[in-house]
């Protein structure tokens, strides 16, 4: 019963959109690479038929916009086609980025939760910290990241941690803001109830505020994990393109390897999707364990 409706409701629309996008992409590649093909033909003194021009614009080595099959081929070559320890393997680079992402996400989540707890319980912290927290996110991360990396390098900290700290810098924000709202989400009568029991602040926190904030936490974590990945990639740019998906993006742009850039981009997008999916799954598991009413799909 559920399977056909799942296919009809989820798979078919997604595939339709995908097909339209791919078709559009091929057409775009045709137009964007046209001048390069023409230039190449003139250089070699060849006369391409229109159909040969078409085909050539989808098979250039360094096209302006690579065709989808070129990106997929590159993705395949640099993942399944190489040993994972190879410096050209996207699995290797993906792992480098992933480890920084996860460490930064973990630290950012902890920092965000601690800040939110302080803000909710101390008026002084609410007044003094909140403006700074918001201000911290108005600074362009692309400007901060190189400085942070260089400063930390100067005091002997390099490798995973500086990149992770940039992820932390980005990911603590949605967690802090979401958790402030979540910890303040209990209704007045729920708080009154605790007051009639003469419960102390710690009991109100563990038995009411914390469980009430869990849905808010997961909403924040979904934003936080995606933004952590961005932070890690940005953190890899100023390190001289040593390792990581960010490094692949940068070296690709140095050498005009557009196919490599696109493959790295797709790897990053795939990783982000996977991470958000994992957070979503853990959310469903936790909400189930907390006895939440199963969501009914609108239909």
């Amino acid at each position, binding site marked *: 019963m559920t399977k056909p409706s799942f296919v009809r409701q989820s798979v078919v629309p997604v595939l339709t959109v995908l097909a339209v996008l791919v078709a559009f992409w091929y057409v775009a590649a045709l137009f964007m690479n046209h001048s390069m093909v023409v230039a190449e033909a003139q250089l070699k003194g060849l006369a391409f038929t229109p159909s040969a021009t078409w085909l050539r614009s989808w098979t250039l080595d360094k096209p302006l916009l690579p065709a989808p099959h070129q990106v997929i081929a590159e993705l395949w070559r640099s993942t399944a086609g190489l040993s994972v320890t190879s410096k050209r393997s996207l699995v290797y680079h993906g792992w480098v980025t992933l480890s920084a992402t996860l460490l930064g996400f973990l630290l950012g989540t902890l920092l965000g939760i601690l800040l939110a707890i302080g803000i909710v319980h101390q008026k002084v912290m609410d007044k003094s910290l909140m403006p700074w927290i918001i201000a911290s996110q108005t600074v362009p991360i692309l400007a901060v990241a190189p400085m942070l990396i260089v400063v930390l390098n100067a005091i002997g900290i390099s490798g995973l941690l500086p990149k992770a700290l940039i992820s932390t810098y980005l990911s603590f924000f949605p967690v802090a803001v979401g958790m402030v709202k979540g910890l303040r989400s209990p209704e007045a009568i729920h708080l009154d*109830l605790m007051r009639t029991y*003469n*419960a102390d602040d710690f009991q109100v926190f563990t038995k009411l505020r914390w*469980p009430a904030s869990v849905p808010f936490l997961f909403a924040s974590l979904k934003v936080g994990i995606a933004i952590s990945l961005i932070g890690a990639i940005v953190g890899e740019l100023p390190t001289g393109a040593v390792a990581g998906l960010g490094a692949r993006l940068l070296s690709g742009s140095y050498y005009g390897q557009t196919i490599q850039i696109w493959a790295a981009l797709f790897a990053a997008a795939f990783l982000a999707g996977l991470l958000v999916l994992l957070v979503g799954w853990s959310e469903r598991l936790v909400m189930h364990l*907390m006895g939440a009413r199963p969501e009914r799909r609108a239909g």
Partner: protein
Amino acid sequence: MAAGQASGCVFTTGVPASMNVIDIEALSLTFETGDGPVQALSNIDLKIAKGDFVSFIGPSGCGKTTLLRVIADLEQPTGGSISVNGTTPELARLDRAYGYVFQAPALYPWRTIARNVALPLEIMGLTRAQQQERIARNLALVNLTGFEKKYPWQLSGGMQQRASIARALAVEPDLLLMDEPFGALDEIVRDHLNEQLLQLWAKTKKTVVFVTHSIPEAVYLSTKIVVMSPRPGRIHDIVESDLPRGPRPLDIRETPEFLKLAQRVRDGLRAGHSYDD
């Protein structure tokens, strides 16, 4: 009154220790709002004896819920004196002297029914075995045995409110404060719960203060009906019921005695309202 409570008179504001569970004199409460002060309660005098079932009835804005919240130390009066269990409302609250039932069940959705009833017991620091015993006993009192492992959303509105009553009873207070607990329920469920509540009251011999805006509910349940009127919130009339104490059949609502009481309450509500439109 128990001997232990006599020592509570140390904390009263000059009122001699009496047999009253609640003793209110010349109490007033003014809220400071953006539009200036609003007098929610004015010159309230009320005594509630142990074992009484007292209803506060009146139109919205008459301060009946506010008065209940003052008794529970959820609002602070701005004038007059009040003692609860022979002491101040705050000390009574710190002593967990009352159980409070809100308009909504206010069950925590992430806790099962049993764990919701356990909530105050965990805060009080009872052992697991004591908790289990009180959960079983109080769920049985409200006829919810067998629903321990259900989550609130799996229960009907009436069952949820019964669970919240079990939670209030689990604290084992002598005083039960109920703020329109059945206001959101349909009349058939409400009748049924009213009957059950009276049986419960007769069985447990607790003092109950009950806020309602339903005349039949107030007259059916109460030994004493406090008729209140708004702007400023004040007591218009206190009606002592001459209906038999203890469990009353629902049919009692058809008797002339009942109708006479209801008429007096209705007249009181109308008189308190007369200056309105």
